[in-house]
């Protein structure tokens, strides 16, 4: 039923077709985090791929810098309702990471883990095939700390809480284990086009 007196302010058709349900266009880049921004020194930064507790591969910042680099242009969608179009990122795809480590994914799920204790769960199939990267640059500049620098996961086709900031590694898990927000009422998968915001959304 319409809300009395509400007309709304529609985006142009070009924008509207790129906005998932319930989202609106944002031109700034808002910051949403659970706590203070961790200050992670590049000299001390490492990135580790684990299978459960067992490390499979590990890179220092310097070693990470020698991996093949890829550019993404993507629309991003935050569960708090804003979307930002045509964001430009650079980093190392998960495909290239796995190839460099010479590992095949040992399970179908993983948790992306961050320096501040945050984690978020993802199916491996959503990270491979050129769909995701560990991003170190945004808009041509090194990624700012408040946006997750030195490096964040970027999985633009899922709500942006899945793109863990200050990422320090990926941990393969035997089953789909709920991460930080997924334990706190947010959806296990988070497809913006299906509006999978909260637990209980279809």
């Amino acid at each position, binding site marked *: *039923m*319409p*809300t*009395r*007196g*509400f*007309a*709304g*302010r*529609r985006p142009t058709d070009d924008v509207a077709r790129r906005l998932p*349900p*319930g989202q*609106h266009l*944002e031109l*700034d880049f*808002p*910051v*949403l*985090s*659970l*706590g*203070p*921004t*961790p200050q992670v020194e590049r000299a001390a930064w490492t990135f580790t791929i684990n299978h459960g507790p067992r490390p499979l591969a590990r890179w220092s910042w310097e070693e990470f810098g020698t991996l093949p680099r890829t550019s993404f242009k993507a629309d991003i969608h935050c569960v*708090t*309702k*804003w979307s930002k179009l045509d964001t430009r990122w650079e980093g190392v795809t998960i495909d290239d990471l796995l190839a460099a480590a010479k590992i095949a994914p040992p399970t179908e799920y993983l948790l992306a883990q961050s320096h*501040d*204790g945050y984690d978020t769960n993802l199916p491996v199939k959503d990270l491979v095939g050129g769909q995701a990267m560990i991003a170190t640059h945004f808009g041509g500049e090194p990624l700012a700390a*408040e946006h997750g620098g030195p490096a964040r996961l970027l999985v633009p086709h899922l709500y942006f809480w899945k793109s863990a900031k200050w990422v320090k590694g990926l941990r393969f898990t035997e089953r789909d284990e709920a991460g*930080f*927000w997924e*334990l*706190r*009422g947010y959806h296990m998968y988070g497809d913006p086009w299906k509006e999978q*915001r*909260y*637990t*209980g*959304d279809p």
Partner: protein
Amino acid sequence: MTAVSPPLASQSAWQDAVIERVVHRTPRVASLFLRASLAAHEAGQHVDVRLTAPDGYQAQRSYSIASAPGDPLLELAVERLDDGEVSPYLHDVAQPGDTIELRGPIGGHFIWRGDDGGPLLLVAGGSGIAPLMAILRHRARVAPATEALLAYSARTWEELVFRDELLTDEASDPHLRVAIATTRGPRHRPTDVEHRFDRELLRTIVAQWNQAPKRVYICGATAFVEAVANAFVAEGMSPAIIRTERYGGA
């Protein structure tokens, strides 16, 4: 990790809520009092609001709940963003008797339960007071002996949302202290300051309080929250006790 209550399936369903009252609390912030049948909320949580145009177009926004758990009406304190889509409607058009859609309550991190205890350090910038107001109101009801300091910054004295309620509460509550900073207007009490919350000022305010906070909640615009949280960490506070909620976007 803290204990987490099981998510309620009902939080995902849109429900009609009737506006019972609209109270303009400051030139830019209005409280909507809603009669809704949502599941009980925790202090600090938010709801999603959905408005529908006659042709079916819909807009959604999230707003923090300012009322305490158990209050008969749900209070949302909404800041009017002049270039916004939803907040000008809620300020200028919505009136008692109107129905809007809500879902929630949402959020399992920026919350405080009575048994979380204190001392509690709350820092608000502008309309970021809303979820902290829910925490203070809840505290007064379920754990009034919990030591609490609210450090609250607004541009002017007139823009302090809930100002009179906070001052009245402070006067009658020996365990509550309210420290006010106005950044673009004069102070009205000798104990307050006309300065933004920088590291030195925050250090002084917390030192005068003379409590070691168990939990710290910071809510406001991104730059405000970033500055306050970084200042506390630089002062040696454990990041693990600091919870943040940032208002970005329109």
